[in-house]
């Protein structure tokens, strides 16, 4: 059984190896500087993480068709969180790493239209169809959340909240890890729960 795992692990190994060549740090670690990246957003602008130094940055992996993502968008939870974060001066990047032909893959126009229809206002929508950014951060699910402090250190990674279900009714009784981490950073306190296991659909690389 392990032999078969090794074989199918090779493509993953190869891409991880290639990524490690392109970036100084191949895996995100809490407390360490978050892996730097440069990407193009749905408005055609170039976004670079190191240019955001001095501001808190939140990364959200999205697949608008995944039932877990829909739970947070149809209830308005994700949009409210985005607005709250932006009010506090944070930058919100909504990232789609679905490969062409797979669920969740969108063009720039589609991404903008969907966001508009959902009343979602992230700072930028990043299209990562080759999955490089997703693999750089070891993003596994949609949603998968990362919080980067103003000094560039990774302060939170994992699930959006503690109820790993597809039911919107679970949102109000759930503990929102992202909001907690954001509030802690703003208050200058250490984040109580910096790392959780994320939940959601697998990212369709």
């Amino acid at each position, binding site marked *: 059984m392990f032999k078969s795992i090794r074989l199918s692990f090779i493509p993953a190994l190869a891409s991880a190896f290639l990524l490690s060549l392109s970036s100084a740090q191949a895996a995100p670690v809490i407390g360490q500087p978050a892996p730097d990246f440069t990407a193009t957003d749905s408005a055609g602008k170039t976004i670079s993480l190191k240019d955001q130094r001095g501001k808190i940055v939140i990364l959200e992996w999205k697949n608008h068709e995944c039932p877990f993502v829909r739970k947070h968008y149809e209830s308005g939870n994700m949009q409210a969180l985005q607005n709250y974060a932006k009010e506090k001066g944070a930058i919100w990047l909504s990232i789609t790493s679905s490969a062409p032909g797979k669920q969740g893959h969108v063009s720039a126009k589609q991404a903008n239209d969907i966001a508009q229809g959902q009343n979602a206002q992230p700072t930028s929508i990043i299209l990562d169809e080759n999955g490089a950014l997703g*693999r750089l951060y070891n993003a596994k699910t949609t949603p998968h959340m990362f919080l980067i402090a103003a000094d560039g250190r990774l302060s939170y990674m994992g699930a959006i909240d503690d109820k790993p279900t597809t039911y919107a009714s679970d949102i109000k009784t759930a503990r929102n890890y992202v909001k907690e981490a954001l509030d802690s950073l703003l208050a200058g306190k250490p984040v109580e729960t910096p790392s959780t296991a994320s939940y959601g659909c697998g990212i369709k690389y």
Partner: protein
Amino acid sequence: MGIWKRIAVAGILAAGLFSPCLADSTAKTELTTISLASNVSTIGAGEDFWLMLHLQLQPGWHTYWQNPGDSGMAPSIDWVMPPGFSAGSIHLPPPERILIDSLVNYGYHSQAYLLVPVTPSRIQGNNASFSATAHWLVCKDICIPESATVDITLPVAERSIESVQRPAIGAQLAKLPKTVETPIPYRADDGTVTFDIPMHSLGLENPTLVTLLPVDNEIISNSATPQITQENGSLTVSVKRGSLAPLPQFTLWAGFADNSQPASTKFFAFTLKRETAAAPAPFAHPQSATDTDITFAAALLLAVLGGIILNVMPCVLPVLALKTLALSKKSHGNRAMIFRQGLAYTAGVMVSGALLAAILIGLQTGGEAVGWGYQMQSPLFVLFLAYLMFLVGLNLSGAYVLPTVLGNVGSSFTQKENSAGSLATGILATLVATPCSAPFMAPAVGFALTLPPLQALAIFLALSFGLALPYLLISIIPALIAWLPKPGGWMITFRQFLAFPMYATAAWLLWVLAQQTGPNGLLAGLLGCILLAFTIWLYPRLERLSTPGRILSLLALIALCLIPFTWVSKTDVLPASQGEQAEIFSLEKLEQLRTQGVPVFVNATAAWCITCKYNERAALDSSEVKARMKEQNIAYLKADWTQRDAHITQYLASFGRRGVPLYVYYPPYREPILLPQLLTKKKVLQTLQNP
């Protein structure tokens, strides 16, 4: 329809309601057919039984195990059961590893079985109906959440009857892992989780590990390949860590193929417990910024030096000054007598010093978490010292005069030989020296307490000798006596002046008491001092009473003065206080911050530790250091040792220290750095510089 037909239809429908087998025990969703079955066709009173939900999935689709892995969702069931029945948790047989791209899930293609144990504790009626609303996630390349409600009604009787599904359910139950009771220790260091499985406990002939299934997600990486080595009947497994910090305990299923029975894989459920080694990672050999390894000879020397310096501390100086000045009166006296007095004083100091040391060492050998300053952790002792200082101060102020046989602190106008007095003064000097600490004392004494008893005693004796040395020298060398100012009226004024350092020491001790026991304790101490002063004022006026009356009154007054002690011992010991930026130290907190990669600065201090206060003032509480700590997100932990705290004592001991202060800086993911006991702003900033 004719009326008879209507009645017939109604009758059939009614019959359907009461028929035990016609409940909706099967439901169909878009991708799944779900059915509910039981291993009993009749429930026996008081007998546990199993209910099983069978999910039959469309080809190509899969659903999940209790730990779905990198993505997905575990199934859940909302039960509606009659009162007296309770359902246990969902038991799922060992899943497959499902690989999608680089993600690993644990789940089932085609068929999934959810087994739930039911316990009847109290039964009413003849039938029991169970309704299960199940929620599960079905995925192929995309995921669809599904749910359905299925019911079953079973008759209840004295004894249970097996159902036709019993063998099928039994087959699934047989796949469940055998729980291994004894936890297995595991280590989580440098990015891997490592543990040993004792193969002999499995009861298999020739086992090979074929699969690892973590029940708690992300402690180990789902996609990493474990490294396995087999040696002497023990299997060592090393897996890459997952994204979560290692838990004190987590569950793991291990599947073994028994080569003597190749067909099936046998599963065992292990509990893995985080190993806490004798010297856990945060306390690994620190890279010391100062040489704490002083040799024994150096420690002796430092102790003598410390003892000498103690003489100028506000606690001891008055005693020494007055004793020395008394010598100038005797400068006409014979040198031999003066020398004898000097020896008596030295003896007094060294004997009481040895006694104190013996008590400390004895307590330590007896297992008490003793360190230098141990005595200061007791509010009772602090109050006692405050009383002592106050009493000495009152004597110097002239409030009372001690009988000469006890040895006045310097107000002896007689030329009589007074060795007993000198001895007593020596003991007094040691007592008043205890709350004061001096430079060089701390390293020597701290080192002493780590040594075997005899060597420790030697260092304390050296300290006492240093304390007695100035007076001894003066008593030996006549030239020094000649240097002393000539006696005169100014001596009375000087004596009264020296009362004030004693009062200041008493005030400081009361402040320490306040830190330990709060405002109530402080009040007790203050009232106690007032009562002492009152007793001293009242006593001479009691001379008019008869002797028994006088003694009784004295005893009553003394009892009054002792009341604050009971008060102080009853007041709640306050929790350690910390400044705005500091957090309370605990070993768990330190460990937690270290695993998160947060840099940590630990300040072990105490209210009665003067060196600590100086360091805080001069370096740690300075704006530059505070700013640097904020900038680098350094967590500042204060370990307040003002009160007895075995955990802090243990922490100090892990660095080979027995007292405060102790300053340790932990850079993220690196070995701790020890700072010197005397801090400068520059040194602290320099140490914090390079993460």
